[in-house]
């Protein structure tokens, strides 16, 4: 495989990681939005706050990583996408900021009105951001942009884009609910476990319906991707995604351990993202910009690979350490009280 091919794969990995990690957070926002009134939604929102707090920054860094790989590895591709998809990407970034601020502000807000406002900002932004990112991807997949395309509404307001946007929302909802069900157990709230399992199944059904619709729509609207999804490796990945989705559904229905449903959900979404990426081969943008044509300087790509390898060597142990500590209950806060207690003991 050429250097450009490897970096394209790294880019796809980054997108899949963001879809899974960031997607889970957006999904939590989706369920926050639909949790109902202040009293009815109190406990789900409480769980969402606690489950998201330690991880959402790490999850967001994937996006920065994706952008960096794009402009360093495929500068022409980066320019094309950001020129043609100006509006959806601008709206997505506003959504990202509002989401962060809404999440940050909700807890300190004491009064109900304030909490409602910040909560609504957080939740609505969680809905809009994946939609616009998905719509941008849909515009690329359907080959509506090519180097030199000017920004226009048609680039992202078309059947494939709208479906990709909706699918992105459904996928985040699915991931979010599957993870929150596991968190409900971890935090000792069995009622919320069932609550989120039902919602995960519901979202899974929505994903399935949208996927089927998408296969019909892309047939005419994005023929290259449709062909890739229904043949060879693309098809294999689609099948893998379907099997993983079924496995998630099965483990959500039963009493399987949370990590099974979580892992299966992640595999389903990641396989879906990979299927799309593989279906686009050999194009970054079908059918106008190939990976080879869009690639930056070869030396840069080699260095980018080297940096990636070094970073993986550094970052993987750190992430593994974080998860190990988290799952072994080592990550719990120390409050002022503990220190004071110690000081008191000494006295």
């Amino acid at each position: 495989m050429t250097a450009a091919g490897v970096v394209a794969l790294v880019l796809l990995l980054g997108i899949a990681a963001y879809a899974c990690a960031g997607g889970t957070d957006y999904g939590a926002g989706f369920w926050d939005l639909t949790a109902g009134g202040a009293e009815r939604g109190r406990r789900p929102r409480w769980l969402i706050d606690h489950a998201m707090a330690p991880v959402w920054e790490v999850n967001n860094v994937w996006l920065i990583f994706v952008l960096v790989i794009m402009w360093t590895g495929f500068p022409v591709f980066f320019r094309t996408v950001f020129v043609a998809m100006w509006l959806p990407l601008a709206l997505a970034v506003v959504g990202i900021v509002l989401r962060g601020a809404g999440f940050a502000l909700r807890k300190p807000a004491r009064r109900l009105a304030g909490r409602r406002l910040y909560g609504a900002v957080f939740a609505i932004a969680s809905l809009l951001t994946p939609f616009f990112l998905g719509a941008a991807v849909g515009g690329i997949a359907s080959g509506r942009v090519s180097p030199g395309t000017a920004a226009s509404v048609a680039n992202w307001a078309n059947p494939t884009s709208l479906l990709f946007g909706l699918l992105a929302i459904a996928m985040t909802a699915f991931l979010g609910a599957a993870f929150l069900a596991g968190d409900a157990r971890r935090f000792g709230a069995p009622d919320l476990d069932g609550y989120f399992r039902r919602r995960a199944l519901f979202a899974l059904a929505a994903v399935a319906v949208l996927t089927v619709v998408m296969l019909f729509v892309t047939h005419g609207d994005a023929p290259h991707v449709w062909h890739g999804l229904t043949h060879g490796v693309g098809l294999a990945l689609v099948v893998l995604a379907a099997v993983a989705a079924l496995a998630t559904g099965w483990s959500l229905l039963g009493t399987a351990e949370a990590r099974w449903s979580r892992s299966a959900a992640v595999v389903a979404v990641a396989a879906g993202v990979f299927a799309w990426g593989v279906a686009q081969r050999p194009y970054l943008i079908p059918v106008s910009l190939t990976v080879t044509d869009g690639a930056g300087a070869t030396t840069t790509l080699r260095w980018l690979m080297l940096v990636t390898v070094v970073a993986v060597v550094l970052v993987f142990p750190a992430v593994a350490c974080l998860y190990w500590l988290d799952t072994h209950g080592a990550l719990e806060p120390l409050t002022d009280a503990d220190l004071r207690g110690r000081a008191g003991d000494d006295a």
Partner: protein
Amino acid sequence: MIHLLADPPPQMLPARSQMAFTLAAHIILVPLGVALPLITLIMHGYGLRRDDPTALLLARRWSAVMAVQFAIGIVTGTVLSFEFGLLWPGMMGRWGDVFGLGFGIEAWAFFLEAVLIAIYLYGWRRLPARTHFLLALPLPAAALLGAFGILAANSWMNTPRGFVLDSAGNPTGVDIRKAVFTPIFGPEYWHFVVAMLMTAGYVVAGVYATGWLRGRRDRYHRLGFTIPFTLAAVCTPVQFMLGDSIARQVFHKQPVKFAAMEIVWKTDTHVPEYLFGRLHPDGTISGGIKVPQLDSILAGFRPDTQVTGLTSVPADARPTAAQATITHFAFDTMVGIGSLLLLLALWYGLVWLRRRRLPASVWFYRAAACAGVASVVAVECGWVTTEVGRQPWIVYQYMRVADAVTATRAPALWTMFGLVILVYVFVFGSFLVVLLKMRTRWRLADASDTAGRGAPETDNPYGPRSALVGSGPAPGPGASAGSEDRS
């Protein structure tokens, strides 16, 4: 025709304004992101070594501030990465593969930092003290690595190299090592790192200096003041040397920028130095204090040193008179603040050497309380100096800002800029609210004897996960149940 070419496209003003605004906002958070981990760990290490609960309390509270700041910084940093594409697609499309690698390093460093901060923040209770401390030790290194990446990219924009242009004017033959380690990189990096240490130190110390002025003169405030202030004070003279060195590097590597910084109009020897003062389009200077010969002496240690003037290049390849004046004011303000901080550091150092104690003068604490804000202003000024002084180039002598800007129309950009201002006011307002609420809670916790009731951290959005009030007894080994149970 020439006039037409020189006219910037209408979308340049909103694009530039938005970039300047978002960068200026992000930069406020950077010193805390780069240097607060180190300051916190010094305090933490001190607390562990002396078995000092006060030091540990301070370190833990600072770690909570660090977490909030890091969260907001990630959000504003994400905005900047999007803006590269939304506002300057021309630059990224042509030069992305030449200078983008620095950002790649930075993204991974950020990742590492996010993970380590999560471990540090949530590891206080259950991890063995030593393990917890050791796991956090790579944090400052990760922060320095992130700064390395960003500064490599910025210094490349100032002194670009590591490529050759083909016949169509596109870069080929990329040499990454040359593109990362450009001539101005070393001076810029060290100047930046020390500036971050100083700023974070003075900002944190300033909080406790304010407390001291308001009569809170306990050990908690003394310790919270002394450690960050000492670090910043030690860095200040170092920064003075580094600042002098980078100015001379700019003189050699970016002579036109140096001319803007010092408002030198015509290339000449025996050039005077102007403290402030305003440059007019015809080359005259009004206002300011003129010191004969000084600029030549500063640039080359001799009065007959030749200093390149703005007129050495055509008008469309140099900052305008207004831009030069802005650069000059920013530069002089930064140097002025740096000099005052040096005096403050000397005051502190002399008292310490002679009497082995903190200065007692109320004026010292007043100055120390202002030092934090002053250093943030200095950081902003330094950034204005390097960015405005580079005009009209986005890539020095290779690409004009006007050629990099997006084709999106001005009204759309103005709308987005307005939206961004609203959102940022909201975000930074929330940042401030969160910090103030934390402070109030801590103060209440310090004042109340029944400490621990209602765990002070419960409401902190990023801070430690609180014990799950309202969901039954918290799981986990009963042995380490906090003192909530005791009260």
